[in-house]
């Protein structure tokens, strides 16, 4: 009995210590932003208050890399905006483990916190569930990377900063034909992932329309798959000279390595999920030599230098497309708030209607890291120019 009591007490202590740590960590990371907010809030005086932005994305679980990237990208943007004075932001970022149920709980937590604008979610699955809630509550939602059309369809309050999946698929097919990158195409995609499946579906439709021949279509069931020999052998025996990989960079890195070891050297072509492959830990970048991908963001670009330096200083890694999308999201929200003349004392519903009006206005456009002159349609889809890049000597070179 004594033992149990002492154990219970020890655990309580441990938990409380951890709680202290947790609180400390989060306040430290938001410390700069908070102090900036405090000082400039005092400076702007009359305006007063901050816009409460709720963020949702996976910070734990298998998709945490993407969630953390969007979170950190947004944090950089918020820090910059708060330092300018004027409109002030405060972000509360909640974990959804890339799951609908947890996403809705995270959304409700943020609603209790008093969120005025929703920034998220990172993944399509969770975003589709959350978007239904934000639509009912009339809270403006801007997602950095949930690219499925199921997220925006039928909901006027949800906007995307990334390309939609179908958009990427059709653009990729068109790009391959226009630049004569290959005549016989093999596709390897993850049929358990809405992103991958969405791109493939549109790619295949466009390919048959413009006469691009797909000779091999193979799938794999999860991003933790490690053996791709069946898929690669199929592509090789079908004589494909270009392999289209609408997948994330982790499985793609294995595909590249295994293709090399079996002596198969077609052109590889990826989408924005491929971005990040060069900074993948333990990946031999020489394998990616000649890899082509369509990404809205190139860290080597002149315009993104400032962001890349700041990001590397804060988090010790090179930002990828997810971080850049997050950064652009916050700046798009900022631009819309400035344009519509919103103030933090307005309620979420008023802000939502004004934001929708501003985002769909014909004269509203945002220049960001992931594209200049981004405009939005009433369907919530962004319109911006994709950039094709090719990996040469371990860096992206615009094609």
């Amino acid at each position, binding site marked *: 009995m004594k033992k149990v009591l002492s154990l219970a007490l020890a655990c309580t202590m441990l938990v409380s210590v951890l709680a202290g740590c*947790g609180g400390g960590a989060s306040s430290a990371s938001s410390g700069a932003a908070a102090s900036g907010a405090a000082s400039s809030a005092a400076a702007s005086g009359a305006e007063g208050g901050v816009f409460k932005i709720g963020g949702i994305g996976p910070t734990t679980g298998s998709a945490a890399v993407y969630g953390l990237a969007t979170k950190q990208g947004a944090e950089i943007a918020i820090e910059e905006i708060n330092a300018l004075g004027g409109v002030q932001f405060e972000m509360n970022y909640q974990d959804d483990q890339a799951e609908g149920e947890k996403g809705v709980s995270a959304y409700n937590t943020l609603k209790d916190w008093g969120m005025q604008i929703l920034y998220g979610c990172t993944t399509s699955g969770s975003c*589709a569930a959350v978007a239904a809630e934000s639509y009912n509550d009339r809270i403006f939602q801007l997602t950095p990377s949930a690219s499925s059309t199921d997220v925006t369809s039928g909901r006027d309050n949800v906007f995307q900063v990334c390309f939609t999946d179908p958009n990427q698929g059709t653009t990729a097919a068109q790009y391959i034909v226009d630049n004569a990158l290959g005549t016989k195409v093999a596709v390897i995609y993850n*049929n358990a992932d809405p992103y991958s499946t969405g791109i493939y579906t549109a790619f295949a439709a466009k390919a048959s329309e413009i006469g691009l021949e797909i000779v091999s279509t193979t799938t794999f069931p999860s991003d933790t798959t490690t053996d791709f020999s069946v898929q690669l052998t199929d592509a090789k025996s079908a004589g494909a000279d270009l392999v289209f990989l609408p997948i994330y960079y982790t499985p793609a890195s294995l595909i590249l390595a295994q293709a090399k070891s079996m002596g198969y050297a077609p052109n590889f072509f990826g989408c924005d999920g491929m971005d990040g492959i060069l900074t993948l830990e333990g990946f031999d970048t020489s394998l990616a030599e000649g890899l082509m991908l369509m990404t809205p963001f190139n860290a080597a670009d002149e315009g993104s230098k400032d962001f890349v330096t700041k990001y590397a200083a804060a988090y010790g890694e090179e930002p990828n497309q997810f971080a850049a999308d997050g950064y652009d999201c916050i700046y798009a929200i900022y631009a819309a708030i400035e344009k519509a003349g919103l103030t933090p004392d307005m309620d979420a519903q008023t802000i939502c209607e004004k934001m929708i009006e501003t985002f769909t206005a014909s004269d509203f456009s945002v220049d960001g890291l992931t594209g200049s002159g981004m405009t939005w349609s009433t369907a919530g889809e962004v319109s911006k120019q994709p950039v094709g890049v090719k990996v040469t000597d371990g860096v992206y070179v615009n094609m």
Partner: protein
Amino acid sequence: MLQKKKFSDYSRSCIVTYAIVIAAFIIISVLKTMGMLSSLLSGLLVPVCAYIVAAIALNLTVGIMGELSLGHAGFMSVGCFSGVLVAQSLADVIPFAPVRLVVAMVIGALLAGVMGIIIGVPALRLKGDYLAIVTLAFGEIIKNLMQCVYVGKDVNGLHFGMKDQMALGMDAATGKMLINGPMGTVSVTKISTFTSGFVLILITLFLVFNFMNSRTGRAVMALRDNRIAAESVGIHSTKVKLIAFLFSAMLAGAAGALYGLNYSSIGPVKFDYNTSILILVFVVLGGIGNMRGSIIAAAILTVLPEMLREFSDYRMLAYAILLIVMMLANNSKFKKNFMEKRNLKQLERKEAAARKEATEHGNA
């Protein structure tokens, strides 16, 4: 007479469980109408109800039948997707949402029951851990199968395919996807309510308690305690076990339909191995064979991780520590002593009552 006494004890325990559930419902409803419930908690009400039903269903297999099932999320998945499909397709035929929800749950339960039979017939004929292995595989198979299912609806009716969205060949203008492969259910009209979840829990409890007390239920428990002895008195082991497992699968299917109709979009990945284990954790923590414990454990363990959001990154760590503490407390000497003393007191009271009754009878 002893038999009669035992019955009333059993019913009393059941009544307490019903009372707890009803009291919780009333308190939460009052809080909700008074606006004192946070959005977080009111958003969790329906999933908690679904998890409670799933936990009771699994407890029927684990606690009453004594077999391990590691794929109950698979049955929930079947119930969820078939239920959502039915509810979405019947939207024009049955405009009244509660009726549509009931139809969806019944269809979900029936299909999950069919799956239960398919799995149960071969696995339950065997002794040992075969059911655990087969259900584990079943959960994975269902998850992978559902990732390939595409169902759409247009003016011509339903289109079903296993390849991709284009292969459905839907009418472009009126076509609408109902189940979209890895994305799962999309644009679902949410019709699950807390009240419907509460009613489902009550129905589940009523069915399970009466089943446990029925001829078949007692046969299942006899098989669990001593298979050879039970078979020697003529109990058909496969048959009664199959009935219990079918029951368990159907309830999980109904829970799945309730769950699926609470979210605008649910992917097949939700019902993976982790969810099966989560339900098993509810059952184990609440006490194997203890329905009331399952209810409380499911409610606490669903709400707890959300309440721990303040710990930010240390949330899952804190959750794990709390789980371990609860497990230790459950098995501690302190609790055992307490339970023993309580049982002893109850026994004494009963004996005193019996003695009193006996003397009264004697006097008469």
